[in-house]
């Protein structure tokens, strides 16, 4: 009897119902993962650019004096290159900027020589150490970034994937493995994103996106909860890519970010 009454009352209530508001817009539950990935990708792209500059400068330094203007024009067209009197410190100036954009301290060995260790400073931003592990492989350590990404650090290995030693660094491809952290700070939120490569990042030279594929494992902590992101992505073309983002166990696919 009670069940029948309950059924009848429920039926009446359903029959008398009407909609007062349509469905909410479906939220993008992976937005935090997307944001974490975005900051990390910015960080990695920036390090790729620093690495790229270092290799280009190495080519410039190694070139005979007669070819230096051509190398400068080809690789470092936006810069004026100057060096200290003993050629151990090199400066890259951009336009009429009075301070050098880059300062590179060499150990007098070419960067393609095993054991060579260079120090790269980008004005106001980064301090990086680059060491040559073997002919086509370098370890890139970013330390003491104090302005734009405070506390950012990285330990990445860049390995050239071209069959031959890439003398033409402009078109060289690399694979990148390692870890990097990105600390974000503003007046109300401090977030440390820890990143490690699951599959090496495949750096593609001269592409719209630096990375043609690979996957990252990211984590960030907030209020004692650790959020985990895995991002697996590949370039469909030089100008489009797909990213499968898994944020806290749930997956979503993006055609771009």
């Amino acid at each position, binding site marked *: 009897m009670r069940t029948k009454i309950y059924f009848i009352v429920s039926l009446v209530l359903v029959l*008398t119902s009407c909609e007062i508001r349509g469905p909410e817009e479906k939220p*993008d539950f992976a937005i935090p993962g997307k*944001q974490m990935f975005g900051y990390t990708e910015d960080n990695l792209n920036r390090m790729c650019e620093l690495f790229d500059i270092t290799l280009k400068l190495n080519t410039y330094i190694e070139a005979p004096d007669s070819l230096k203007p051509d190398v400068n024009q080809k690789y470092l067209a936006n810069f004026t290159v100057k060096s200290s009197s003993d050629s151990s410190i090199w400066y890259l100036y951009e336009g009429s900027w009075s301070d050098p954009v880059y300062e590179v301290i060499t150990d007098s060995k070419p960067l393609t020589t095993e054991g060579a260790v260079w120090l790269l400073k980008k004005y106001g931003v980064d301090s990086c150490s680059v060491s040559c592990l073997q002919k086509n492989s370098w370890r890139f350590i970013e330390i003491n970034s104090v302005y734009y990404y405070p506390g950012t650090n990285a330990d990445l290995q860049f390995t050239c994937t071209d069959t031959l030693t890439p003398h033409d660094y402009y078109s060289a491809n690399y694979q990148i493995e390692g870890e990097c952290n990105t600390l974000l700070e503003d007046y109300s939120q401090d977030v440390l994103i820890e990143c490690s490569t699951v599959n090496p990042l495949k750096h593609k030279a001269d592409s719209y996106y630096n990375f043609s594929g690979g996957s990252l494992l990211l984590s960030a902590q907030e209020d004692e909860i650790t959020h985990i992101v895995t991002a697996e992505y590949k370039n469909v073309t030089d100008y489009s890519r797909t990213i499968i983002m898994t944020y806290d166990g749930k*997956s979503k696919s993006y055609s771009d970010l």
Partner: protein
Amino acid sequence: MKKEHIFLFLIFIFALFTTEKVVGQRIMSNNFQPQHEFRIGMGYKPFEAAKISFGDPWFVFHVPLIDFNVDDYYSGARYTTNAIFGEYTYQASSWFGIGATVTYFSYYNNYYDAENDAYVGRNITSHYSFFPTLRFTWFRRPAFSMYTSFGLGVRYVFENDRVHNVETSDFRESISGQFTLLGLTIGKKVYCFSDISTIGTQGTITIGLGYRLISSKR
């Protein structure tokens, strides 16, 4: 029960009693027999269901670097059962009645997973209202009348929310009431009624059935 509720209730009882004794007796001379009226009805779209928006805030105080507070679910369409109510009125004179109304309605919606649209929970908010009512009949014929009425009282709201098997409940109190500018009845002993110009807890239009019982008190 709060003090103000007890106070309202006492006023209602007092008004009912004095109306019976004083007004009722005076009416007798006009050949109007006091009546007990019972009604059940339905109201369309309780007042709260009307969307009242002041627009989006023009100033955003803070946008976090990473917004971790993103829901992984979303609400489906929200419904109301519309108001279902019962009403008692003591029609003390041909123009004046006093009574009380109880009303029930609820809002409900389901929640769905943002990843795969699977059902993950629901929200049901039930509203129980009680308010004394005054009715002023300003046009009366044997089988037709028109009236104005209003009432103000209390409401008890029970909200139950469940998402991903996490259940939360909430209880709160607020006011309830109904103002009817124009209401109609058609019929004699058993009659139909409709409040066609009304607003409040019962909605923006009501319909229902009523029954008149001649009071035995003289």
